[in-house]
């Protein structure tokens, strides 16, 4: 179904061993799980919150929650989808805790992050094309942030975390049909907003 599936299965087999050890109280096993997934959890938190300052705090919260609840993990799903579910819920709780602020410099932030490492990325094309690409990417990030939460979660998990539909269904705890619908609707919205660049 999806290109990343073989990798996922490979990860799962070692995860089962680590989780079992962890459920016996082996903290070292949990340490290995943290080591294995910390980057991905950081990435997902950032993709959802778009807040640099929050990422580490929330990541710690995620792993702490995972540790506390490790005995409730029965192996019905992949460990990483279970961990992503905790991550998504933690991020959404954080977003609800904080009154959403309309960032005045969203464009500048997106601009600076995308331009930070652009030389190596765009040096092969001409300046005009570079500019259009940069503008496209900046608008893509902005439009993504403006999507309704349910659509955004689905498309972030699909495009940035490269989960397949079943995994997204597992993370978000929604039916497969709903995943398909949300991803389709998210893309339709993005197409409308980015029509000039597409």
């Amino acid at each position: 179904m999806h290109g990343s599936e073989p990798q996922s299965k490979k990860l799962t087999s070692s995860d089962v061993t680590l989780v079992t050890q962890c459920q016996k109280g082996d903290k070292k096993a949990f340490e290995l799980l943290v080591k294995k997934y910390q980057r991905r959890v950081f990435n997902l938190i950032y993709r959802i919150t778009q807040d640099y300052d929050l990422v580490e705090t929330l990541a710690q919260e995620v792993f702490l929650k995972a540790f506390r609840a490790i005995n409730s993990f029965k192996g019905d799903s992949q460990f990483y989808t279970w961990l992503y579910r905790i991550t998504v819920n933690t991020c959404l709780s954080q977003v609800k805790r904080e009154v959403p602020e309309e960032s005045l410099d969203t464009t500048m932030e997106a601009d600076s992050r995308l331009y930070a490492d652009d030389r190596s990325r765009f040096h092969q094309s001409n300046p005009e094309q570079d500019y259009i690409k940069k503008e496209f990417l900046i608008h893509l990030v902005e439009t993504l942030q403006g999507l309704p939460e349910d659509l955004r979660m689905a498309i972030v998990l699909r495009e940035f975390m490269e989960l397949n539909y079943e995994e997204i269904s597992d993370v978000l705890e929604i039916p497969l049909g709903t995943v398909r619908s949300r991803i389709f609707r998210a893309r339709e919205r993005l197409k409308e907003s980015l029509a000039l660049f597409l």
Partner: protein
Amino acid sequence: MGCSKYAPLLSRFLDEDLASTEIEGLLRHLSSCTACQEGLNVLEKLRYGFQAVGEIESVPSPDQGFLERTMATLVYEERPQGQEDADRVHDGSSKRRTPFSWKGIVQLVFPGQPFPVWARVFRYAVPALIIVILGLLLIPAKQDETIDVASITPSQDLLFPVDQTSQPFETYIFHHATQQPLGTFSDELPLIQEVADSGR
């Protein structure tokens, strides 16, 4: 055939979520529909955009100390819930015992015996009994605060006739030892009367 039917399929096709029959139908449609071909191109450009953002955008990554800091927070955490059950199932070297348990004590006294019902009752009854006994020992005996009214030398003011209770009056209370006035009462006739009566 309307293209609106195929729009959701294009999205799923991009994500490799279609069944083989659906793919065949879609490919047949794509071969004759330029609008849907263009639609698929747009979706691919979107995907390129996401990939480019993922590669270019500088995303925070865990530093060297993150793992240590995270594990340090776990040190203060209790063992995960249900750990006891997990230990019971996995009877291995990692088995941990709680430092104190009634069950342990009972099994020390009666080795090899199953945990009896009376011991289960004891588990709650014994601590409750100990608490009650300690409470009785620790609570100081109540001081006898009653005053023997008969021993109080009545002041002149208390010796009013009972039949004058309807009259306005003012009563002075004196300290028994120093004979200094402690207060004046004018509205507590029944009390005073009771004291006066009991003093006789």
